[in-house]
C-alpha cells in the first residue's frame, strides 16, 4: 500500500498540512462562543418570518442577480468556448476565472458604485471564464461525424447548432443548471460587499442580534436551493431570464467621471502617477511584496493546505451518507439531506457566521471550507460508489468501507480533491475580507485606504497563485493517471 503513488502523494499532503498547523492561528477567542452558537441554533428552530417584505426582497434580489449574472456568463462563455482553440482565448478565460467574484465586485464597486451592474458583472465575468472552459470541453467530446456528412453548402451557424451544440445540449444544460446553483450562492455572498442580496440582509440581522431573522434567511436560502429542480424547468427559464433584469433594483446611478478616474489615475501605481520614475516603482513594488503580498501568500497557502486535507478527511468520512452501499431506504434520504445542506452553505457565509461566534482566527475559515467542499465531493463520490456493484457475499460495515469501496473510490476522490484545490485557494484568499490575514485581507485593506493601485497588484498576484495551483493540480492528476472531465462535475 505504501508503494502506491497515490498513497504517497496523499501522505505528502497530510505532512505538509500538519506542518502548516504549527504556523496557523487556530484559537477560539470569541466572547461566549458557545452561547452565541446556542442563540443561533434557537434562531434556526424558531425562525422569525414576521418581517416578510424584508425577507422577500432578500430572496428576489438574490435570485435576480444570480439569473442575470449566470445568464450573461453562459452566453459569453458559449462564444468563448467556440473560440477556445485560440491560446489567447484560453489564457483570457483562465485569467478572468482566477479572480473571485467578490474581488470583481470590489473592483466594480470602486467605479460603478452600488449600481446593479456591479453585482451582475461580478458574477458574469468569472462565470464566463469557467463556462468557456467547460463548454469547450463538452463540445470537444461531441461526435464530429454528423457535421462531416451535412450536405454541402450548409452555413456555419446552422451546422454548429444542428450538430455540435445539439449533441452537447443535454450536458450543456445540466452543467449550466449546476452553475446556476453556484450562482445563487455567489449572489447571496455578494450581499456582504453591499449588493442588495441575501448576505446584506444576513449581515445586518446579525449585527442587530436578530437571530430569528438570521434563522429565517438561512432556512429560506436552503429552501430555495433544495427546491431548485422543482421550479427551474426548461420552459420557465426564458421567463426567469426576461424578468430578472427588472428585479435587480435600481441602486445608485453610475458616475462616469469615477469610471474614467479609476482607469486613468486610481489604478496607476503611485510612483508612476506622481512621475517618480521606474526606480521608485521598483522600491514601491518591493515594499508591497515584502509587507503585504508575501505574508498574504504565506497565510493563503497555509490555510489552503490545512483546509484541503481536512476537506479530504471529512469527505472520506461523509461519502457513505450518499452511498447506497451504506444506507437503506430510511437513512438514504437523511444522508442525502445532510450532504445537500453542507454543500448548499456558501463557505463565505459559513465563515462569516463562525467568525461572529468564535472570533477572528483561521479556524472558522478552515471549518467553513472543509464543510462546504466535503459536502460537494462527498456527494459526488457517493454517487460514484452507487455505480459499483458489489459481489453478493461482500463484507458489511467498516470492512466494506475499508476493503471494498474506499480503495476503488480513492482515485476519483483524489481527482475531485485536486480539482477543488484551486477553488479552495480562491476562496481562502477571499475569506481575508472577513479579517483572516490571507491575500483578500490585504486587498480589502488597500481598498479601504483608497490605494487601488496596491489592491490591483495584490489581486493580480492572487490570480497568478490560483493559475499556478491549477497547473500543479493538473500535473498531479496526469502523473497519478486520474481522469477528470467536465462531465464528472455534478
Amino acid at each position, binding site marked *: 500500500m505504501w508503494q502506491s503513488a497515490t498513497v504517497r502523494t496523499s501522505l505528502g499532503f497530510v505532512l505538509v498540512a500538519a506542518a502548516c498547523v504549527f504556523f496557523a492561528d487556530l484559537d477560539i477567542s470569541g466572547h461566549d462562543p458557545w452561547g452565541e452558537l446556542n442563540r443561533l441554533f434557537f434562531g434556526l428552530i424558531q425562525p422569525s418570518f414576521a418581517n416578510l417584505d424584508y425577507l422577500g426582497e432578500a430572496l428576489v434580489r438574490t435570485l435576480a442577480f444570480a439569473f442575470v449574472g449566470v445568464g450573461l456568463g453562459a452566453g459569453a462563455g458559449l462564444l468563448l468556448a467556440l473560440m477556445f482553440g485560440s491560446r489567447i482565448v484560453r489564457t483570457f478565460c483562465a485569467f478572468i476565472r482566477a479572480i473571485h467574484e467578490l474581488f470583481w465586485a470590489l473592483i466594480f464597486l470602486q467605479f460603478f458604485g452600488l449600481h446593479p451592474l456591479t453585482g451582475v458583472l461580478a458574477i458574469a465575468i468569472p462565470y464566463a471564464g469557467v463556462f468557456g472552459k467547460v463548454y469547450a470541453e463538452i463540445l470537444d467530446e461531441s*461526435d464530429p*461525424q*454528423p457535421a*462531416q*456528412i*451535412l*450536405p*454541402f*453548402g*450548409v*452555413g456555419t*451557424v*446552422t*451546422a454548429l*447548432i*444542428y*450538430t455540435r451544440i*445539439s*449533441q452537447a*445540449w*443535454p450536458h450543456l444544460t445540466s452543467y449550466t443548471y449546476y452553475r446556476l446553483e453556484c450562482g445563487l450562492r455567489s449572489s447571496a455572498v455578494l450581499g456582504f460587499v453591499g449588493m442588495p442580496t441575501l448576505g446584506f440582509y444576513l449581515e445586518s440581522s446579525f449585527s442587530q442580534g436578530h437571530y430569528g431573522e438570521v434563522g429565517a434567511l438561512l432556512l429560506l436560502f436552503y429552501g430555495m436551493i433544495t427546491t431548485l429542480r422543482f421550479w427551474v424547468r426548461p420552459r420557465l427559464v426564458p421567463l426567469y431570464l426576461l424578468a430578472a433584469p427588472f428585479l435587480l433594483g435600481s441602486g445608485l446611478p453610475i458616475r462616469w467621471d469615477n469610471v474614467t478616474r479609476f482607469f486613468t489615475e486610481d489604478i496607476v501605481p503611485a510612483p508612476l502617477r506622481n512621475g517618480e520614475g521606474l526606480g521608485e516603482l521598483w522600491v514601491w513594488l518591493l515594499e508591497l511584496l515584502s509587507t503585504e503580498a508575501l505574508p498574504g501568500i504565506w497565510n493563503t497557502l497555509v490555510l489552503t493546505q490545512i483546509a484541503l486535507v481536512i476537506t479530504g478527511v471529512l469527505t472520506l468520512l461523509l461519502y457513505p451518507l450518499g452511498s447506497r452501499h451504506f444506507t437503506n431506504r430510511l437513512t438514504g434520504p437523511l444522508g442525502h439531506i445532510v450532504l445537500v445542506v453542507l454543500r448548499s452553505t456558501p463557505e463565505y457565509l459559513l465563515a462569516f457566521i463562525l467568525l461572529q461566534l468564535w472570533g477572528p482566527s483561521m479556524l472558522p475559515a478552515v471549518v467553513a471550507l472543509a464543510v462546504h467542499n466535503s459536502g460537494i465531493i462527498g456527494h459526488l463520490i457517493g454517487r460514484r460508489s452507487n455505480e459499483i456493484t458489489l459481489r453478493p457475499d461482500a463484507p458489511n460495515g467498516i470492512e466494506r468501507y475499508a476493503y471494498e469501496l474506499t480503495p476503488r473510490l480513492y482515485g476519483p476522490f483524489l481527482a475531485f480533491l485536486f480539482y477543488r484545490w484551486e477553488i479552495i485557494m480562491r476562496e481562502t484568499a477571499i475569506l481575508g475580507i472577513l479579517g483572516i490575514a490571507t491575500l483578500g485581507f490585504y486587498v480589502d485593506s488597500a481598498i479601504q485606504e483608497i490605494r487601488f493601485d496596491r489592491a490591483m497588484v495584490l489581486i493580480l498576484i492572487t490570480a497568478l497563485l490560483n493559475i499556478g495551483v491549477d497547473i500543479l493540480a493538473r500535473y498531479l492528476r496526469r502523473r497519478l493517471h486520474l481522469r477528470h472531465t467536465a462531465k464528472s462535475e455534478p
Partner: protein
Amino acid sequence: MQTLTLTNLVADYGEQRVLGPLDLAIEPGQKIALVGKSGAGKSTLLNLMHQRWRHTGAALMPQELGLVPSLSVFHNVFMGGLARRATWYNLVSLMRPFRRDIDSILPLLEQLDIAEKCWTAAGELSGGQRQRVAAARAIHQQSDLLLADEPASALDGPMAVKVMAALTEAHPTAVLALHDVELALRFADRVVGIADGQIALDQPSERVKTQDLLALY
C-alpha cells in the same frame, strides 16, 4: 450529372497503404455495389468519394450513421435538407418545425415504417430504427449521388429490401458497400469487388456469379 472518374486513387494509413492505386469511372444512372470482406478498403473508398464529390451535393450514409442522438427523428431527417433553406428558417425549425417540412418528411418516414417515431430522440431508437432514420435523411437530401456504407446491415429480410428499394429509387446514381451478396445482386446493376485495396472484380451484375463473389471473401 457527368461521368465521375477516379484516377490513380490512393489512401495511406501512416506508412501502410490501405487503398489503391486504383481507377474507377461511374456513369450517371449506375447503381454500384461495392463488395469485399471487412477491412478490404470499401469504407475508405466511400469516404474518399464523399470528400471528392461532396461539393456536387453527394449524400453520404456512413456505417456509424452520423445521427445526432439528442435531436428528434424529424430533425435528423430535416438535416438532409439544411442546405436548401436559409439559416433563420433552419433555426426556427429547430424550435418549431414548419408544416410543409412535416408534410414532406412524414410520408418518407411512413415509407420506411418509422413514422410513429417522428418526434422521438434518435438516441432512444434501436439500431435498425436508427438505420432507417439515416436512410430517410440521405433521401431527404435529394441528391443525384448516394454513397452508402452498409445501409441495411442492421435490418432483417423484408425491411432491408424496403430500405434498399427506397434508397435506390430516390437516387439516380448510387455506390453501396454491401456484404449481403443477395442484396448486392438484386439492387445493383454493376458489382465492384475490392480485395486488399485493389479492384478485384468489376462486372455488370447479371454477369456476376455467386461463385465469383465468394472468392472475394
